[in-house]
């Protein structure tokens, strides 16, 4: 497929989505809504590119971020992941799976009152590092943990 046409279509799609969200009032009255769905982030194909796009190339390893996952996941389609940050003023938590086709899996913005302790289930295409990228007090920190995957959960 023609790559430039693809990018064009995707860009058009994301603009439409934003308009739809704004239309239903999801973004109303929210000063912190600078972070909106950014399709290009989710299309980043490798980790370095992604960290650059997030402005997190200087992210430091931190022991204050705890990732809880099974060491071996039998089914890559459903891998439970818990991320807990003990860093003060954690404002954003992103979950990356390094070897997935799209490494960025999810990004959470913590507003008032939510504890920096999130649970979710993710897909993993193969054995890979799971990376938690935490933005706390304006700085990025990260932690990683390897999860072995027996059966991948992205393809067929």
């Amino acid at each position, binding site marked *: 497929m023609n790559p430039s046409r693809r990018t064009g279509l995707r860009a058009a*799609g994301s603009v*439409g*989505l934003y308009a*739809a*969200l704004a239309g*239903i009032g*999801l973004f109303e009255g*929210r000063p912190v*809504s600078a*972070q*909106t*769905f*950014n399709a290009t982030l*989710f299309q980043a194909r490798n980790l370095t590119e992604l960290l650059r796009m997030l402005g997190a190339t200087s992210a430091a390893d931190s022991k204050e971020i705890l990732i809880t996952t099974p060491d071996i996941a039998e089914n890559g*389609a*459903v*891998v*439970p992941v*818990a991320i807990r940050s003990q860093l003060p003023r954690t404002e954003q938590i992103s979950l990356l*799976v390094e070897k*997935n*086709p*799209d490494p*960025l*899996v*999810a*990004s*959470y*913005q*913590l*507003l*008032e*009152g*939510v*504890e920096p*302790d*999130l*649970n*979710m*289930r*993710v*897909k993993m*295409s193969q054995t890979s590092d799971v990376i938690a990228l935490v933005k706390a007090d304006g700085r990025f920190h990260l932690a990683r943990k390897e999860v072995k995957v027996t059966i991948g*959960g*992205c*393809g*067929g």
Partner: protein
Amino acid sequence: MADPTKIRGTLKDGVAEVRVLMAHEMESGQRRDAAGKLVPAWHITEVVAALNGKPVLKALWGPGISKNPFLGFRIRGAKAGDTITISWIDNRGDKRSDEVKV
């Protein structure tokens, strides 16, 4: 319209433990159908959790979240009778909002 979102909110020492189960296909865009064509991605892109109408958590999701997504988190300072609302929207523009009392 998709099936209702299942939400549980339990209160313990002023902290509401919230567990959410959304009904969604979460197609990754990597899979091929029987004819060998790529199945287009179809996934939730944004989830907003609100306590008494005030947003507390905003999530951006890619296709890497599992089918029928689960999300667990805790809200400080919640009281019995507070309302937790979970809204989501997917990349086809479908949306759904459900609420539950703590």
